[in-house]
Protein backbone atom coordinates (compact mmCIF):
# COMPACT_ATOMS: atom_id res chain seq x y z
CA UNK A 1 0.00 0.00 0.00
CA UNK A 2 1.28 3.42 -0.90
CA UNK A 3 1.68 6.22 1.57
CA UNK A 4 -1.12 8.10 -0.13
CA UNK A 5 -3.57 5.21 0.15
CA UNK A 6 -2.74 4.82 3.84
CA UNK A 7 -3.41 8.48 4.49
CA UNK A 8 -6.72 8.45 2.60
CA UNK A 9 -7.81 5.33 4.47
CA UNK A 10 -6.99 7.00 7.75
CA UNK A 11 -8.92 10.16 6.81
CA UNK A 12 -11.96 8.12 5.82
CA UNK A 13 -11.92 6.30 9.11
CA UNK A 14 -11.78 9.64 10.89
CA UNK A 15 -14.56 11.01 8.61
CA UNK A 16 -12.44 14.07 7.99
CA UNK A 17 -13.69 16.84 5.68
CA UNK A 18 -10.33 16.73 3.99
CA UNK A 19 -11.24 13.43 2.36
CA UNK A 20 -11.93 13.88 -1.37
CA UNK A 21 -15.54 13.26 -2.20
CA UNK A 22 -16.89 14.38 1.15
CA UNK A 23 -18.88 17.66 1.14
CA UNK A 24 -16.75 20.46 2.71
CA UNK A 25 -18.11 23.20 5.02
CA UNK A 26 -18.50 25.81 2.21
CA UNK A 27 -21.03 25.28 -0.56
CA UNK A 28 -20.42 26.20 -4.20
CA UNK A 29 -23.41 27.28 -6.32
CA UNK A 30 -24.60 24.70 -8.77
CA UNK A 31 -22.96 24.93 -12.20
CA UNK A 32 -20.65 27.63 -10.92
CA UNK A 33 -17.54 26.20 -12.48
CA UNK A 34 -19.32 25.27 -15.69
CA UNK A 35 -20.46 28.85 -16.24
CA UNK A 36 -17.36 30.56 -14.93
CA UNK A 37 -15.30 30.63 -18.17
CA UNK A 38 -18.15 32.19 -20.13
CA UNK A 39 -18.66 34.73 -17.34
CA UNK A 40 -15.01 35.76 -17.46
CA UNK A 41 -15.05 36.01 -21.23
CA UNK A 42 -18.04 38.31 -21.04
CA UNK A 43 -16.28 40.51 -18.52
CA UNK A 44 -13.10 40.94 -20.50
CA UNK A 45 -15.14 41.73 -23.62
CA UNK A 46 -17.13 44.32 -21.67
CA UNK A 47 -13.86 45.92 -20.55
CA UNK A 48 -13.03 46.47 -24.17
CA UNK A 49 -16.52 47.70 -25.12
CA UNK A 50 -16.65 50.96 -27.02
CA UNK A 51 -19.46 52.43 -24.99
CA UNK A 52 -22.00 51.71 -22.28
CA UNK A 53 -24.52 50.20 -24.70
CA UNK A 54 -22.10 47.67 -26.05
CA UNK A 55 -20.89 46.93 -22.56
CA UNK A 56 -24.35 46.06 -21.16
CA UNK A 57 -25.16 44.00 -24.25
CA UNK A 58 -22.06 41.95 -23.58
CA UNK A 59 -22.61 41.67 -19.84
CA UNK A 60 -26.34 41.07 -19.80
CA UNK A 61 -28.59 40.83 -22.84
CA UNK A 62 -31.52 40.73 -20.41
CA UNK A 63 -30.77 44.12 -18.88
CA UNK A 64 -29.92 45.63 -22.23
CA UNK A 65 -33.41 44.70 -23.42
CA UNK A 66 -35.21 46.51 -20.58
CA UNK A 67 -36.43 50.05 -21.27
CA UNK A 68 -34.16 52.74 -19.85
CA UNK A 69 -37.12 54.89 -19.02
CA UNK A 70 -37.73 54.73 -15.28
CA UNK A 71 -41.31 53.80 -14.50
CA UNK A 72 -41.83 56.57 -11.92
CA UNK A 73 -44.49 59.21 -12.60
CA UNK A 74 -43.81 62.94 -12.55
CA UNK A 75 -46.44 65.63 -11.85
CA UNK A 76 -47.66 67.35 -15.00
CA UNK A 77 -45.76 70.53 -15.95
CA UNK A 78 -43.09 69.92 -13.31
CA UNK A 79 -40.08 70.56 -15.53
CA UNK A 80 -41.67 73.53 -17.27
CA UNK A 81 -42.20 75.30 -13.98
CA UNK A 82 -39.03 74.27 -12.17
CA UNK A 83 -36.84 77.09 -13.51
CA UNK A 84 -39.27 79.80 -12.49
CA UNK A 85 -39.73 78.29 -9.04
CA UNK A 86 -36.03 78.24 -8.23
CA UNK A 87 -34.90 80.85 -5.70
CA UNK A 88 -32.05 82.65 -7.44
CA UNK A 89 -30.35 84.20 -4.47
CA UNK A 90 -30.79 85.00 -0.82
CA UNK A 91 -33.78 87.11 -1.77
CA UNK A 92 -35.50 89.06 0.95
CA UNK A 93 -38.44 87.31 2.51
CA UNK A 94 -41.72 87.88 0.83
CA UNK A 95 -43.72 90.46 2.77
CA UNK A 96 -47.22 89.57 3.85
CA UNK A 97 -49.76 91.19 1.53
CA UNK A 98 -50.94 93.63 4.18
CA UNK A 99 -47.45 94.99 4.85
CA UNK A 100 -46.55 94.99 1.16
CA UNK A 101 -49.56 97.21 0.53
CA UNK A 102 -48.60 99.67 3.25
CA UNK A 103 -44.97 99.98 2.20
CA UNK A 104 -45.43 102.87 -0.24
CA UNK A 105 -48.21 104.67 1.56
CA UNK A 106 -47.09 108.02 3.02
CA UNK A 107 -47.67 108.55 6.74
CA UNK A 108 -46.40 112.02 7.66
CA UNK A 109 -47.71 115.13 5.98
CA UNK A 110 -45.29 117.42 4.14
CA UNK A 111 -46.01 121.10 3.33
CA UNK A 112 -47.11 121.68 -0.22
CA UNK A 113 -44.21 122.48 -2.57
CA UNK A 114 -41.64 121.66 0.09
CA UNK A 115 -39.35 119.51 -1.98
CA UNK A 116 -39.65 121.71 -5.05
CA UNK A 117 -38.51 124.82 -3.19
CA UNK A 118 -35.97 123.23 -0.92
CA UNK A 119 -32.87 123.50 -3.17
CA UNK A 120 -33.37 127.24 -3.73
CA UNK A 121 -33.93 127.88 -0.03
CA UNK A 122 -30.77 126.14 0.95
CA UNK A 123 -28.78 127.91 -1.73
CA UNK A 124 -30.11 131.31 -0.69
CA UNK A 125 -29.20 130.66 2.91
CA UNK A 126 -25.75 129.49 1.97
CA UNK A 127 -25.05 132.66 -0.04
CA UNK A 128 -26.76 135.27 2.19
CA UNK A 129 -25.86 134.26 5.69
CA UNK A 130 -22.59 133.97 7.56
CA UNK A 131 -21.72 130.74 9.10
CA UNK A 132 -23.13 130.55 12.64
CA UNK A 133 -20.54 130.92 15.39
CA UNK A 134 -20.79 128.56 18.27
CA UNK A 135 -19.50 130.22 21.48
CA UNK A 136 -17.00 128.19 23.42
CA UNK A 137 -18.47 129.46 26.68
CA UNK A 138 -21.98 128.66 25.75
CA UNK A 139 -21.98 125.26 27.20
CA UNK A 140 -24.34 123.58 29.42
CA UNK A 141 -23.94 124.69 33.04
CA UNK A 142 -25.30 121.33 34.03
CA UNK A 143 -22.14 119.59 32.94
CA UNK A 144 -19.96 121.83 35.10
CA UNK A 145 -22.20 121.31 38.12
CA UNK A 146 -22.09 117.54 37.67
CA UNK A 147 -18.29 117.59 37.40
CA UNK A 148 -18.01 119.69 40.57
CA UNK A 149 -20.21 117.29 42.51
CA UNK A 150 -18.11 114.33 41.42
CA UNK A 151 -14.85 116.06 42.38
CA UNK A 152 -16.23 117.07 45.79
CA UNK A 153 -17.41 113.55 46.44
CA UNK A 154 -14.04 112.08 45.59
CA UNK A 155 -12.24 114.65 47.79
CA UNK A 156 -14.51 114.06 50.78
CA UNK A 157 -14.24 110.33 50.44
CA UNK A 158 -10.45 110.59 50.27
CA UNK A 159 -10.22 112.72 53.40
CA UNK A 160 -12.49 110.43 55.39
CA UNK A 161 -10.55 107.41 54.30
CA UNK A 162 -7.27 109.08 55.23
CA UNK A 163 -8.58 109.99 58.71
CA UNK A 164 -9.69 106.49 59.36
CA UNK A 165 -6.27 105.17 58.55
CA UNK A 166 -4.21 107.68 60.68
CA UNK A 167 -3.69 106.90 64.40
CA UNK A 168 -2.68 109.41 67.15
CA UNK A 169 -0.01 107.81 69.38
CA UNK A 170 -1.02 109.90 72.40
CA UNK A 171 -4.74 109.23 72.37
CA UNK A 172 -4.67 105.73 70.88
CA UNK A 173 -1.28 104.38 71.94
CA UNK A 174 -2.18 100.69 71.70
CA UNK A 175 -3.55 101.07 68.18
CA UNK A 176 -0.52 103.13 67.22
CA UNK A 177 1.89 100.47 68.55
CA UNK A 178 -0.08 97.70 66.88
CA UNK A 179 -0.08 99.57 63.55
CA UNK A 180 3.64 100.35 63.64
CA UNK A 181 4.68 96.91 64.88
CA UNK A 182 3.36 95.52 61.65
CA UNK A 183 6.15 97.41 59.88
CA UNK A 184 8.84 95.70 61.99
CA UNK A 185 10.08 92.35 60.75
CA UNK A 186 10.30 89.21 62.90
CA UNK A 187 14.10 89.12 62.55
CA UNK A 188 14.39 92.63 63.96
CA UNK A 189 12.23 91.71 66.95
CA UNK A 190 14.32 88.61 67.65
CA UNK A 191 17.52 90.64 67.50
CA UNK A 192 16.07 93.20 69.90
CA UNK A 193 15.18 90.44 72.37
CA UNK A 194 18.69 88.99 72.12
CA UNK A 195 20.25 92.40 72.79
CA UNK A 196 17.95 92.96 75.73
CA UNK A 197 18.90 89.64 77.29
CA UNK A 198 22.63 90.45 76.83
CA UNK A 199 22.18 93.77 78.68
CA UNK A 200 20.52 92.03 81.59
CA UNK A 201 23.45 89.64 81.78
CA UNK A 202 25.81 92.60 81.82
CA UNK A 203 23.86 94.11 84.70
CA UNK A 204 24.15 90.86 86.66
CA UNK A 205 27.96 91.00 86.28
CA UNK A 206 28.02 94.59 87.48
CA UNK A 207 26.15 93.64 90.66
CA UNK A 208 28.84 91.12 91.59
CA UNK A 209 31.57 93.78 91.35
CA UNK A 210 34.00 94.34 94.25
CA UNK A 211 33.65 98.12 93.99
CA UNK A 212 30.17 97.94 95.40
CA UNK A 213 31.37 95.96 98.41
CA UNK A 214 33.97 98.60 99.14
CA UNK A 215 31.36 101.35 98.92
CA UNK A 216 29.06 99.64 101.41
CA UNK A 217 31.69 98.49 103.97
CA UNK A 218 31.10 101.58 106.17
CA UNK A 219 27.31 101.25 106.13
CA UNK A 220 25.70 99.29 108.98
CA UNK A 221 23.26 96.47 108.38
CA UNK A 222 20.44 98.40 110.11
CA UNK A 223 20.92 101.35 107.78
CA UNK A 224 20.86 99.03 104.78
CA UNK A 225 17.68 97.34 106.05
CA UNK A 226 15.96 100.74 106.66
CA UNK A 227 17.01 101.76 103.14
CA UNK A 228 15.60 98.61 101.66
CA UNK A 229 12.30 99.00 103.57
CA UNK A 230 11.89 102.56 102.24
CA UNK A 231 12.68 101.66 98.60
CA UNK A 232 10.52 98.53 98.56
CA UNK A 233 7.31 100.53 98.90
CA UNK A 234 8.49 103.02 96.24
CA UNK A 235 9.43 100.22 93.81
CA UNK A 236 6.02 98.74 94.12
CA UNK A 237 4.45 102.07 93.21
CA UNK A 238 6.77 102.45 90.24
CA UNK A 239 5.99 98.91 89.07
CA UNK A 240 2.33 99.82 89.12
CA UNK A 241 3.05 102.84 87.01
CA UNK A 242 5.15 100.81 84.55
CA UNK A 243 2.60 98.06 84.08
CA UNK A 244 -0.31 100.38 83.79
Amino acid at each position, binding site marked *: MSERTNILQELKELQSSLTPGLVPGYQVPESFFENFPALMLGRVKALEAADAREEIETLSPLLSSIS*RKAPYSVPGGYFQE*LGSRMPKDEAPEKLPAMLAGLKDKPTFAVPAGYFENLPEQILAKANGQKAPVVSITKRSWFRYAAAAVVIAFVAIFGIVYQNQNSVDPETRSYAWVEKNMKKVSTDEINRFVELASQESNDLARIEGNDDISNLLKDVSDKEIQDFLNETLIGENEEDDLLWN
Partner: protein
Amino acid sequence: MSLTTTDTELLVQFRDPVTKEKAYTSLIRKYQEKLYWHIRRMVVDHDDANDVLQNVFIRVWKGLENFREDSQLYTWLYRIATNECLTFLEQQKKRTSVSLDEEEGGLTHKIKADENFDANKLEWKLQLAIQQLPEKQRIVFQLRYYDEMPYEEMSKVLETSEGALKASYHHAVKKIEDYILNH
Protein backbone atom coordinates in the same frame (compact mmCIF):
# COMPACT_ATOMS: atom_id res chain seq x y z
CA MET B 1 -11.12 68.16 -20.76
CA SER B 2 -12.61 71.26 -22.31
CA LEU B 3 -16.20 72.27 -21.84
CA THR B 4 -18.72 72.04 -24.60
CA THR B 5 -19.32 75.28 -26.44
CA THR B 6 -22.74 75.59 -24.91
CA ASP B 7 -21.45 75.06 -21.38
CA THR B 8 -18.64 77.57 -21.94
CA GLU B 9 -21.14 80.14 -23.16
CA LEU B 10 -23.36 79.46 -20.18
CA LEU B 11 -20.46 80.00 -17.83
CA VAL B 12 -19.48 83.26 -19.45
CA GLN B 13 -23.06 84.49 -19.28
CA PHE B 14 -23.39 83.39 -15.68
CA ARG B 15 -20.29 85.32 -14.68
CA ASP B 16 -21.72 88.49 -16.22
CA PRO B 17 -24.11 90.12 -13.71
CA VAL B 18 -26.32 91.35 -16.55
CA THR B 19 -26.96 87.89 -17.96
CA LYS B 20 -26.47 85.84 -14.82
CA GLU B 21 -30.09 84.96 -14.18
CA LYS B 22 -30.78 84.16 -17.81
CA ALA B 23 -27.76 81.83 -17.89
CA TYR B 24 -28.88 80.19 -14.68
CA THR B 25 -32.35 79.51 -16.02
CA SER B 26 -30.87 78.06 -19.22
CA LEU B 27 -28.61 75.81 -17.21
CA ILE B 28 -31.54 74.52 -15.18
CA ARG B 29 -33.52 73.78 -18.32
CA LYS B 30 -30.59 71.95 -19.85
CA TYR B 31 -29.76 69.64 -16.93
CA GLN B 32 -32.87 69.45 -14.79
CA GLU B 33 -34.27 66.20 -16.18
CA LYS B 34 -30.98 64.33 -16.18
CA LEU B 35 -30.24 65.36 -12.64
CA TYR B 36 -33.81 64.78 -11.54
CA TRP B 37 -33.84 61.19 -12.70
CA HIS B 38 -30.43 60.52 -11.25
CA ILE B 39 -31.76 61.78 -7.91
CA ARG B 40 -35.17 60.15 -8.25
CA ARG B 41 -33.66 56.74 -8.82
CA MET B 42 -31.74 57.21 -5.59
CA VAL B 43 -34.47 58.58 -3.36
CA VAL B 44 -37.52 57.12 -5.19
CA ASP B 45 -40.09 59.59 -3.89
CA HIS B 46 -40.89 62.62 -6.11
CA ASP B 47 -41.16 65.12 -3.25
CA ASP B 48 -37.83 64.03 -1.87
CA ALA B 49 -36.29 64.21 -5.34
CA ASN B 50 -37.72 67.72 -5.77
CA ASP B 51 -36.17 68.85 -2.47
CA VAL B 52 -32.80 67.40 -3.32
CA LEU B 53 -32.87 68.80 -6.87
CA GLN B 54 -33.57 72.29 -5.61
CA ASN B 55 -30.76 71.99 -3.08
CA VAL B 56 -28.50 71.01 -5.94
CA PHE B 57 -29.35 74.08 -8.00
CA ILE B 58 -28.93 76.36 -5.01
CA ARG B 59 -25.44 75.01 -4.58
CA VAL B 60 -24.91 75.53 -8.28
CA TRP B 61 -25.97 79.17 -7.98
CA LYS B 62 -23.51 79.72 -5.14
CA GLY B 63 -20.62 77.73 -6.53
CA LEU B 64 -20.70 78.11 -10.32
CA GLU B 65 -18.78 81.39 -10.16
CA ASN B 66 -15.77 79.45 -8.85
CA PHE B 67 -16.13 76.38 -11.07
CA ARG B 68 -12.58 75.45 -12.04
CA GLU B 69 -13.42 73.85 -15.42
CA ASP B 70 -11.08 70.92 -14.78
CA SER B 71 -13.97 68.57 -15.59
CA GLN B 72 -17.13 68.69 -17.62
CA LEU B 73 -19.85 70.90 -16.22
CA TYR B 74 -22.29 68.00 -16.07
CA THR B 75 -19.68 65.94 -14.16
CA TRP B 76 -19.58 68.71 -11.58
CA LEU B 77 -23.37 68.84 -11.47
CA TYR B 78 -23.63 65.09 -11.03
CA ARG B 79 -21.11 65.23 -8.23
CA ILE B 80 -23.18 67.80 -6.40
CA ALA B 81 -26.35 65.80 -7.02
CA THR B 82 -24.75 62.58 -5.80
CA ASN B 83 -23.47 64.23 -2.64
CA GLU B 84 -26.83 65.83 -1.96
CA CYS B 85 -28.51 62.43 -2.39
CA LEU B 86 -26.12 60.82 0.03
CA THR B 87 -26.63 63.64 2.52
CA PHE B 88 -30.38 63.31 2.18
CA LEU B 89 -30.31 59.55 2.67
CA GLU B 90 -28.01 59.96 5.66
CA GLN B 91 -30.44 62.43 7.24
CA GLN B 92 -33.33 60.10 6.55
CA LYS B 93 -31.42 57.28 8.14
CA LYS B 94 -30.92 59.38 11.30
CA ARG B 95 -34.59 60.30 11.39
CA THR B 96 -35.81 56.76 11.03
CA SER B 97 -32.88 54.99 12.76
CA VAL B 98 -32.36 52.74 9.75
CA SER B 99 -28.83 51.95 8.53
CA LEU B 100 -27.91 53.03 5.03
CA ASP B 101 -27.52 49.43 3.95
CA GLU B 102 -30.97 48.72 5.27
CA GLU B 103 -32.27 51.86 3.60
CA GLU B 104 -33.42 49.83 0.62
CA GLY B 105 -36.05 48.37 2.93
CA GLY B 106 -37.64 51.83 3.20
CA LEU B 107 -37.05 52.66 -0.47
CA THR B 108 -38.37 49.29 -1.58
CA HIS B 109 -41.50 50.16 0.31
CA LYS B 110 -41.71 53.50 -1.47
CA ILE B 111 -41.31 51.80 -4.86
CA LYS B 112 -44.14 49.43 -4.09
CA ALA B 113 -46.23 52.36 -2.87
CA ASP B 114 -45.99 54.13 -6.25
CA GLU B 115 -49.41 54.42 -7.87
CA ASN B 116 -48.11 52.86 -11.08
CA PHE B 117 -46.24 49.99 -9.46
CA ASP B 118 -46.68 46.65 -11.18
CA ALA B 119 -44.65 43.75 -9.75
CA ASN B 120 -44.99 41.79 -12.97
CA LYS B 121 -43.38 44.41 -15.15
CA LEU B 122 -39.70 44.07 -15.83
CA GLU B 123 -38.91 47.76 -15.34
CA TRP B 124 -40.39 47.65 -11.81
CA LYS B 125 -38.49 44.51 -10.99
CA LEU B 126 -35.35 46.30 -12.13
CA GLN B 127 -36.06 49.16 -9.69
CA LEU B 128 -36.53 46.71 -6.84
CA ALA B 129 -33.35 44.89 -7.85
CA ILE B 130 -31.37 48.14 -7.88
CA GLN B 131 -32.47 48.86 -4.30
CA GLN B 132 -30.86 45.59 -3.18
CA LEU B 133 -27.42 46.92 -4.11
CA PRO B 134 -25.15 48.66 -1.62
CA GLU B 135 -25.51 52.41 -1.86
CA LYS B 136 -22.34 53.26 -3.79
CA GLN B 137 -22.77 50.34 -6.15
CA ARG B 138 -26.29 51.57 -6.78
CA ILE B 139 -24.92 54.94 -7.87
CA VAL B 140 -22.30 53.31 -10.10
CA PHE B 141 -24.92 51.14 -11.78
CA GLN B 142 -27.33 54.00 -12.37
CA LEU B 143 -24.69 56.36 -13.74
CA ARG B 144 -23.44 53.76 -16.18
CA TYR B 145 -26.66 51.99 -17.08
CA TYR B 146 -29.05 54.91 -17.30
CA ASP B 147 -26.80 57.89 -17.93
CA GLU B 148 -24.10 56.00 -19.88
CA MET B 149 -21.48 58.08 -18.14
CA PRO B 150 -17.86 57.32 -19.18
CA TYR B 151 -15.82 55.71 -16.43
CA GLU B 152 -13.35 58.58 -16.64
CA GLU B 153 -16.08 61.07 -15.72
CA MET B 154 -17.62 58.72 -13.18
CA SER B 155 -14.22 58.49 -11.50
CA LYS B 156 -14.34 62.27 -10.94
CA VAL B 157 -17.92 62.18 -9.71
CA LEU B 158 -17.32 59.42 -7.19
CA GLU B 159 -13.59 59.95 -6.58
CA THR B 160 -12.92 56.27 -7.19
CA SER B 161 -10.55 54.62 -9.64
CA GLU B 162 -11.88 53.56 -13.01
CA GLY B 163 -10.87 49.96 -12.39
CA ALA B 164 -12.83 49.79 -9.16
CA LEU B 165 -15.84 51.35 -10.87
CA LYS B 166 -15.74 48.84 -13.70
CA ALA B 167 -15.54 45.95 -11.29
CA SER B 168 -18.35 47.39 -9.20
CA TYR B 169 -20.56 47.86 -12.23
CA HIS B 170 -19.98 44.34 -13.51
CA HIS B 171 -20.84 42.88 -10.12
CA ALA B 172 -23.95 45.04 -9.95
CA VAL B 173 -25.14 43.80 -13.33
CA LYS B 174 -24.74 40.22 -12.21
CA LYS B 175 -26.61 40.77 -8.96
CA ILE B 176 -29.47 42.53 -10.67
CA GLU B 177 -29.78 39.86 -13.30
CA ASP B 178 -29.88 37.17 -10.64
CA TYR B 179 -32.55 39.09 -8.70
CA ILE B 180 -34.79 39.53 -11.73
CA LEU B 181 -34.46 35.88 -12.75
CA ASN B 182 -35.25 34.66 -9.24
CA HIS B 183 -38.19 36.96 -8.43
